[in-house]
């Protein structure tokens, strides 16, 4: 059967993660949550350690810890420290505590590198089910709340005036972020999840005049990076996760150069002022 081929499973896994990461990545870029995404992803390594200690599923452990992390940061924000300071503290301490916690896990030969940069070639059928289940859930959630999320992103006050609670929408995004981190950990690892969120979205910006189009272009770039990166890594015998991110970055550079010639939809170009 086709799924017996590890390369096919890897390609499917990468595609699933790229599809879920596209719309979420756009929100991360629009709302300037890049560092927030990083913090959530870094906390995942603590989730890995906990799931090993408690011998629960990796997905559940990572999802729980990422969610807790994201909520903690949301609650703490606006209480005296600037957001980037807060995230700097929480992201790196979560990573450090996670790495220390993992060292306590005895009797398991733990491939730490696999969790830090991912091990897409080891994606199993069960992993595929989790990745696609999570990805579809994220897509469904974002799809259902799309307009409310966009309005809350534009302006919390506009959202209030339209009967939308921006805090609830923030919670939806936080939940989706934790979910994407949990499903992406196998594919690109905790260090590179944020890259997979942000780079395709940023690359899509010059080719987009509406938010919806930016999501579609980001999805295309993400899927292309995942599959192209996989093929390249296989041929050059390089680590797969980082190769995927490298390819996405090259596409971003190409898009930025092309975008400079595109005119009014590009972020830097402004039309005539009256």
């Amino acid at each position: 059967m086709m799924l017996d081929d590890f390369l096919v499973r890897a390609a499917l896994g990468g595609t699933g993660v790229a599809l879920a990461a596209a719309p979420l990545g756009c929100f991360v870029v629009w709302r300037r949550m890049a560092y927030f995404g990083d913090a959530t992803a870094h906390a995942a390594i603590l989730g890995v350690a906990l799931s090993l200690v408690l011998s629960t599923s990796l997905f559940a452990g990572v999802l729980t810890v990422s969610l807790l992390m994201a909520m903690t940061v949301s609650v703490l924000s606006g209480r005296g420290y600037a957001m980037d300071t807060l995230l700097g503290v929480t992201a790196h301490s979560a990573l450090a505590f996670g790495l220390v916690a993992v060292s306590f896990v005895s009797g398991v030969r733990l491939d730490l590198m696999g969790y830090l940069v991912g091990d897409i070639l080891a994606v199993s059928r069960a992993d595929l089910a989790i990745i696609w289940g999570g990805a579809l859930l994220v897509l469904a959630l974002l799809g259902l709340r799309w307009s409310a999320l966009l309005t809350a992103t534009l302006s919390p006050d506009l959202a209030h005036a339209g009967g939308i609670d921006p805090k609830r929408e923030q919670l939806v995004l936080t939940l989706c972020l934790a979910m994407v981190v949990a499903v992406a950990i196998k594919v690109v690892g905790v260090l590179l999840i944020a890259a997979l969120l942000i780079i395709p979205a940023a690359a899509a910006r010059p080719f987009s005049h509406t938010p919806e189009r930016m999501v579609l272009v980001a999805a295309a770039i993400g899927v292309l990076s995942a599959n192209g990166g996989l093929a390249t890594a296989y041929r050059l015998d390089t680590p797969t996760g980082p190769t995927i991110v490298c390819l996405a970055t090259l596409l971003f550079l190409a898009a930025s150069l092309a975008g400079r010639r595109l005119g009014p939809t590009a972020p830097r170009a402004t039309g005539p002022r009256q």
Partner: protein
Amino acid sequence: MASRPAETGTLIQRPVHDAGQEVSMPLLTLHDIGVTRRGNTILTGIDLALQAGEIVTVVGPNGSGKTTLLRVIIGALTPTRGEIEHRQALTLGYVPQRLHIDPTLPMTVARFMALPRRRPADALYRALEQAGAEGLADRQMATLSGGQFQRVLLARALLGRPDLLILDEANQGLDHRATAAFYRQIDRVRRELGCSVLMVSHELHVVMKASDRVICLNGHICCQGRPEAVAGSPAYRDLLGVEERDAVAFYRHDHDLAEALP
């Protein structure tokens, strides 16, 4: 800008003159609204009723709680005390003070207008036309001039056929001519739709002429009434300082104030 301590306001408080008392059912009534944040009292004892079709302007110096008051009314802020009563199925149209659209977010005017609810295209074009923003539908929000941007915000607020249009210093970043044109547009819209208008401003001379009632705010309501009455009131003069007094004298040729100048 000279801002006096709060008790000065109470000393010179005048009998409240309510322009629309004869109309029975207000759109919106605030009862004894107070807002306290981190120990600072921002608003206190605000009683306010907005009647159908009325244009009400709230004036006051920076930090007088104008924006806080609007945020309470649109529901973005829960007051520390007091109550708000709405008429049933009241539709609000909100034009924010300023809206920064992140340049990473691609947004055409038409797409922006259709947030959070999709609207039929003809309604969208009609609203743009009513707000004097026709022909802008396909433009990127980021490429609009200040005046165009405000008109698009107004058009968006009009889409829901609001009973009450709320504008928060909608003239920010507009020069005097653009501001005057924008307020004329609002007056036209009000007559077309028959909605009430509540706006906030620190620039009075242009606003006041169109208003049925002006409310002087400085944490509490210092005075309110018809524009002429408020312009002549000592509470208003105290509140808005020399700079505004000059402006008012210049634009309104108000003899009382002109005499007061050297």
